[in-house]
């Protein structure tokens, strides 16, 4: 308990320090101005979200083939944490886009994929809440998760092909391409800090799910007696 509080405190300090660096150490981007700072958070969160959904897919497959309850705990944890990160992405994106592009939202491939991905995993969590029996819940949500994840590249490419035929605002030439060194340091630190946050949240949620499962077992046993 104290250990996890200590870990959280260290991580919080790291994120605060990185945020400080992003604002005061890294230079201000010329064309976009100070609003570009949101990218440190935006891109790192997007990365964490995709890692979380990838983990969820792995846990889904693992559950179907091994039927270990642990795999199910990991999938629900990863889906929830991923959804939390993707919410940050979906909120920070428009805040950045409005001053730069002059619009809050555009149906660009990456944006749309993020949105559809959020919807798919929201359905995943809803489905879980609609199946009572633990084994069935684990199995059927895992199978849905597998199908949903397979859809990700298809969604991405369909929107990409579709949108290249229509005019669209240009997203900056990808981070890392000739990035200013101080910017790069800030990016890397933020990325590290948020990956740390991902791991922390994931393990905390996983432990919670393990506890929840044992409470559910006890409750069911008590009902029978």
């Amino acid at each position: 308990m104290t250990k996890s509080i200590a870990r959280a405190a260290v991580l919080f300090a790291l994120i605060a320090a990185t945020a400080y660096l992003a604002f005061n150490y890294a230079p201000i981007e010329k064309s976009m101005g100070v609003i570009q700072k949101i990218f440190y958070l935006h891109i790192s969160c997007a990365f964490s979200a995709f890692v979380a959904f990838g983990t969820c897919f792995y846990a889904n497959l693992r559950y179907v083939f091994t039927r270990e309850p642990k795999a199910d705990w990991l999938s629900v944890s990863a889906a929830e944490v991923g959804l939390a990160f993707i919410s940050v992405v979906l909120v920070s994106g428009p805040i950045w886009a409005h001053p730069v592009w002059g619009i809050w939202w555009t149906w660009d491939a990456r944006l749309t994929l993020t949105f559809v991905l959020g919807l798919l995993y929201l359905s995943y969590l809803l489905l879980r809440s609609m199946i009572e029996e633990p084994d069935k819940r684990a199995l059927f949500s895992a199978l849905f998760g597998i199908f949903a994840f397979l859809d990700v590249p298809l969604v991405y490419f369909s929107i990409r092909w579709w949108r290249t035929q229509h005019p669209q605002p240009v997203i900056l030439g990808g981070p890392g391409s000739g990035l200013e060194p101080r910017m790069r340091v800030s990016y890397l630190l933020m990325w590290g800090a948020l990956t740390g946050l991902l791991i922390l949240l994931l393990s905390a949620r996983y432990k919670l799910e393990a506890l929840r499962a044992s409470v559910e077992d006890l409750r069911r046993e008590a009902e029978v007696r």
Partner: protein
Amino acid sequence: MALFANTTVLLGKELRTEFRSRELLTTTVVFILVVIVLFSFTFDPSVGESRKFGPGLLWLSFLFAASLMLQPCFLREQNNDTLSALRLAVQDPFSIFLAKLSANTVFLLLTEVLMLPIFAILYNVHILAVFPQLVLVLFLGSLGVAIPGTAFSAISAQARMRELMLPLLLLPLLTPVLIASTEATSGLLAENPGLRIDWLGFLAGFDIVFLTALWLFGEYLLEE
């Protein structure tokens, strides 16, 4: 070969039951009709506007209709535990899915082809010259709807609020089908109609990806 034989027998059963009652077909046709009529109030269905919005609303109405039509697909098998009887009888459980998704594709295609002329009249679009190509697009698109739709019908049958769950699970996943089918249909309804081979290829790819997934994971969907 057992797979093929079982699939044929099961497909025969699916078609026979449906054509005996025609419950799904009639309700779906009426549903699509209602949606198409209601959509016409949301914009001015002149020739130009219809070319722009028509294909999208057509496919949106097909998608919504499908998410309702696929609902009873596995639910029906629960009534008398006939799914267990099928699982005990078939040589390969994939045949159960293959038969059901073929039947669903047939039902979707039938209702769509029936609705096309009505859509054409109401929205002033010309379909006669490109009818065979349109049917090809409808076929690949309907298959793309039916494959994950049949799989998810087995999932939603296990859940509470299943009437809402199926559309919720299915519709976001069908984003690529909606885009590809709409684009391919737009190409055919344009002033200079053309078959969009790239989008047809994409649809075929989508169908293959999910058919493979269903082949790999289908039998787990049948577990109790």
